[in-house]
């Protein structure tokens, strides 16, 4: 028995434009139904429906992927900007150049920036490869990591600069006033009052 051949153009379009979920099986099903007496019009209609569904799916996936990677990149960039702002803020402090150039500060800041970059890159790559929505926990982890990294960077940079610089200033100007003290703002107040008080 010779097989009835379905419209070649429709088949070609289906093969090239309608490759969605189980595309081969769908094409096989259409062929099978055509052998069982379906009309060419039916075949065309079904092919167009399959192509339309595949295109809509493809556009939706592309848009979702684009939106997700844009948001992730934005989060990473915000974290980086905050980290840079913290460095700039520290560099404006008095006698903070020493603290800024200390190996601990540089290494920690580099690690923080690298971590933020890695998290964003990993998540956007993973999403691109799988084409699926990342799970809720992944999104939570990403949001938590980026918030924690930026908040941590700012806090650490702020406290380090305040404590070390004021301590240095106090030890230079007033000798033992800074010794044993651990609180930046307290030291700052002590330093300011000692400068303003002539006695």
């Amino acid at each position, binding site marked *: 028995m010779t*097989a009835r051949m379905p419209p070649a153009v429709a088949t070609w379009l289906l093969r090239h434009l309608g490759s*969605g979920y189980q595309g081969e*099986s*769908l094409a096989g*099903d259409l*062929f099978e139904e055509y052998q069982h007496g379906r009309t060419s019009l039916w075949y065309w209609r079904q092919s167009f429906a399959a192509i339309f*569904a595949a295109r809509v799916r493809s556009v939706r996936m592309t848009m979702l992927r684009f939106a997700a990677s844009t948001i992730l990149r934005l989060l990473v960039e915000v974290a980086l900007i905050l980290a840079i702002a913290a460095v700039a803020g520290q560099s404006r402090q008095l006698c903070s150049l020493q603290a800024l150039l200390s190996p601990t500060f540089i290494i920690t800041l580099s690690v923080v920036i690298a971590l933020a970059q890695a998290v964003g890159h990993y998540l956007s790559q993973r999403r691109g490869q799988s084409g699926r929505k990342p799970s809720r926990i992944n999104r939570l982890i990403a949001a938590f990591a980026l918030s924690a990294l930026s908040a941590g960077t700012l806090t650490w940079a702020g406290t380090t600069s305040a404590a070390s610089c004021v301590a240095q200033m106090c030890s230079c100007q007033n000798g033992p006033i800074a010794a044993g003290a651990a609180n930046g703002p307290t030291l700052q107040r002590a330093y300011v009052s000692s400068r303003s008080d002539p006695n």
Partner: protein
Amino acid sequence: MRKREYLGQLELMVLLAVMRPARDAYGVLISRDIAEKSGREVALASVYAALERLERKGLISSSLGQPTAERGGKARTYFKPTMAGIQEAREAHGTLLRLTSGLPLLKGEIT
């Protein structure tokens, strides 16, 4: 009450068609089954879109068969329900029964 994703009408019809016993469910059979039972023809692409959603939700699983000449050398993809799928269909069925019980309009008792 636990939060869960509800099945759409087509998804539920496809899931129920997949659950029919004593045969391997694949696209053509599922589509025919729905057309027979509902009186409406559904595009095969829509059936496959629903199958994709069901598989993503873990309610059905698929396996590839052998290519045949009857299908132009293309293989069939067979679908079967998972335990979660059977449970979901049971719950949907129960919910529909509870919702439709005591509705005079459904029995033709128009006042």
